């Protein structure tokens, strides 16, 4: 009886909360609270600021205004799904959940609702197979690409032979952290190294035992698949056991300033893989300053510009805007539907020349998506942290993944998914 009253209040509140339709709706499932907020905030700010810039400078994409719908997920799957359900009815064009857990939930839902998902360098790796995953995109690279690139880099460091070496993986004990394991196991068979698995449970503040194990077994290299507060704790712990930092390599999600700065000088030499440029030394930042920062329209508190994850949010927004532009060209309209957006993403082609036009020369790898390949080029470079200057710098060129191993794994895993869910892979020409 009381219950019905609470429900009634709910009905009234939800009735009030229906914003008007806008031209291009981009939902931003962000997390500005909780143990993952240090990473979620810069990404969300970068994502928002790029769209604000397009609105302020160009009046949106090809004249269609962009509307950003922000929804707080706290990196929590249940909240993420709630956000998806509450925003999908407003013409949301593409979802970027920034969480592998939420991505897994959205893969079947979004496909059924005909809305594309861009899990940029995270999520389900085998979604790179566009024949099975028609609505899921994970360009410019996948975890399996990252794992194989890091192993390639270690090979080059060790003069091409890592037989008998010990490589440890410190990972977030979730779908996200477990992603690279299979690839690393396959690569271990190929190259003959020994793989050590060290899971860290959410949220990752307690890692003493993990690093004691590292100290005892003394692996030659430590790889890390961490996120949120886990990253900085791991780097601090590694420094405290005096693990050689240049033998400690993180995935692109364990490679931002918030992860390395708390460890102070101890983090010097820490390495990580990345797929985009660092810093604010790009022409687009002049426009951002003029149209966004100085106009007081920066998202959040505006303190994150130029940070790694801010740049990553920006690159995500850039690919989304370019995909929308492509979709407009294909369908000859600026009034996009999610289905058209999907077509645009599948035909996306952002090469170096286009990046320069956008004020981002050399900012990231050129991406060309196709019907069969939703995973992009799968390139990554290794960057290293300089604790004195507090900057990242690229120490290698962009390296390509071990396609032989990765492609076979993607084919296997996507075939298994297709079988489980009765999907007939579509034809791509």
């Amino acid at each position, binding site marked *: *009886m*009381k*219950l*019905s009253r*609470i*429900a009634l*209040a*709910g009905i009234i*509140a*939800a009735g*009030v*909360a*229906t*914003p008007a339709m806008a031209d291009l709706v981009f939902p931003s499932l*962000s997390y*500005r*609270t909780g143990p993952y*907020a240090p990473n979620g905030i810069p990404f969300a700010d970068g994502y928002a600021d790029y769209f604000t810039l397009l609105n302020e400078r160009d009046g949106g994409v090809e004249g269609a205004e962009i509307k950003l719908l*922000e*929804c*707080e997920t*706290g990196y*929590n*799957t*249940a909240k993420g*799904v*709630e956000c998806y*359900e*509450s925003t*999908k*009815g407003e013409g949301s064009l593409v979802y970027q959940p920034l969480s*592998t*857990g939420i991505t*897994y*939930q959205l893969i*079947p*839902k979004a*496909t*059924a*609702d005909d809305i594309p998902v861009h899990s940029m360098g995270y999520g*389900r790796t085998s979604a790179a197979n566009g024949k099975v995953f028609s609505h899921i995109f994970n360009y410019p690279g996948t975890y399996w690409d990252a794992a194989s690139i890091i192993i390639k880099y270690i090979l080059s460091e060790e003069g091409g032979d890592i037989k008998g070496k010990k490589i440890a993986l410190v990972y977030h*004990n*979730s*779908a*996200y952290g*477990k*992603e690279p*394991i*299979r690839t690393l196991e396959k690569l271990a068979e190929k190259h003959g190294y020994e793989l050590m698995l060290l*899971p860290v*449970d*959410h949220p990752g503040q307690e890692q003493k035992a993990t690093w004691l194990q590292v100290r005892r077994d003394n692996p030659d290299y430590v790889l890390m698949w961490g996120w949120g507060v886990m990253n900085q704790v791991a780097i601090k712990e590694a420094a405290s056991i005096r693990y050689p930092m240049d033998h400690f390599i993180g995935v692109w999600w364990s490679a931002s300033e918030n992860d390395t700065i708390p460890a102070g000088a101890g983090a010097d030499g820490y390495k990580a893989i990345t797929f985009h440029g660092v810093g604010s030394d790009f022409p687009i930042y002049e426009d951002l300053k003029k149209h966004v920062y100085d106009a007081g329209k920066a998202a959040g508190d505006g303190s994150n510009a130029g940070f790694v994850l801010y740049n990553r949010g920006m690159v995500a927004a850039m690919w989304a805007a370019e995909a929308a532009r492509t979709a407009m060209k294909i369908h000859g309209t600026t009034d996009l539907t999610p289905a058209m957006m999907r077509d645009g993403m599948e035909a996306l082609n952002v090469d170096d020349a286009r990046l320069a036009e956008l004020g981002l020369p050399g900012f990231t790898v050129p991406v060309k998506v196709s019907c069969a390949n939703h995973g992009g080029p799968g390139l990554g470079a290794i960057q290293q942290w300089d604790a004195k200057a507090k900057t990242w710098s690229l120490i290698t060129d962009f390296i390509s993944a071990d396609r032989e191993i990765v492609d076979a794994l993607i084919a296997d*895993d996507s075939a298994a998914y297709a079988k*489980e*869910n*009765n999907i007939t892979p579509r034809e791509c020409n």
Partner: protein
Amino acid sequence: MFYRETGEFKTSYKADQATFPIRFEFFVFWTVVVLAFAVVPFFINDYWEKAVFIPFFVYALGAIGLNILTGYCGQVSLGTGGFMAVGAYACYKLMTGLDIYIPMGFDDTGTMAYHTILLPPLNIVWCVLLGGVITAIVGMLFGLPSLRIKGFYLAVATLAAQFFLVWLFNKVPYFYNYSATGQITATETTLFGFAITGPNAAPVATYLFCLSFLFLFAWIARNLVRGRIGRSWMAIRDMDIAAEIIGVNPLMTKLSAFAVSSFYIGMAGALFFAVWHGAAEPTEAFSINQSFLVLFMIIIGGLGSIVGSLIGAAFMVLLPVLFKNIFVGAFGWPTDLSEYLQLMLVGALIIVFLIAEPHGIAALWRTTKEKLRMWPFPH
């Protein structure tokens, strides 16, 4: 005025023992039931289903389960999240076709030989029910220490269940069918030709499915706690030595409370995974936070009250959604500010309610009813 008992004379035992002795309550109850079954399904959409109704039904079922154990039988449990995980994983194994390995001894090379039995995928109704049954068995196992330890110490023992079970489902690949990421994903299942799980399930189908479960099992629970079994639970809760002296068997009583409670929680876990989320990983979905959430629900709603479980679940599930819609949707405030405010407001409301009525909202409701009966001429 509405709650006047005057003129409502009971002339039979049946009438005297009715769940709703006051005619007004009886009508309100059935109006809500008819609304829920016959009217809401015509207006429901994805958002209402996924963000409001299904979470409420799932947690209500879980809260009833925990209330049986903690509220009626007095055994504090912090293992709810772990038991929900048992229900979810059992449901997953059953819906994908359970594989059973029976060791048949060692062969010549010294490796263990197995006889494998592959069950066909079961109907979703059986998956949920058997998920509950399997959880009941696991719950009874973890309930065994309750015969020797009480109160806070038992809470710690059930806490061990929480951590052990989550660890188990994360560690042993058998439980997640050897998937690369340790995630379990619900396959599409149907009932009478309508999809209940999977991405193509219509909101109305999942809504009615979960509502039917809640209605049926809330009904059973209500009648269980009024009968002999429920009274023996309460006897144990109120004073176990006295109960033993008057002939209540503590072993059977405590274990039956653990079994029934875990059965409900297991079903809640199965619905949580299969119908609501469609996929889950143990560390996040069934963490200790779930245990606390359900415990808060029954404390706020009212220990030892079935309707209290429902009110508590509604309070904890719907309030955050309501605040979020008001702050972000209606006022357009930043999402992080809204999140923090919502945490503070829900926390403050919990404290307010507990000060105003330590026995939960259900007790508040009971007091209100008492007053309404006298109104407008109190003593």
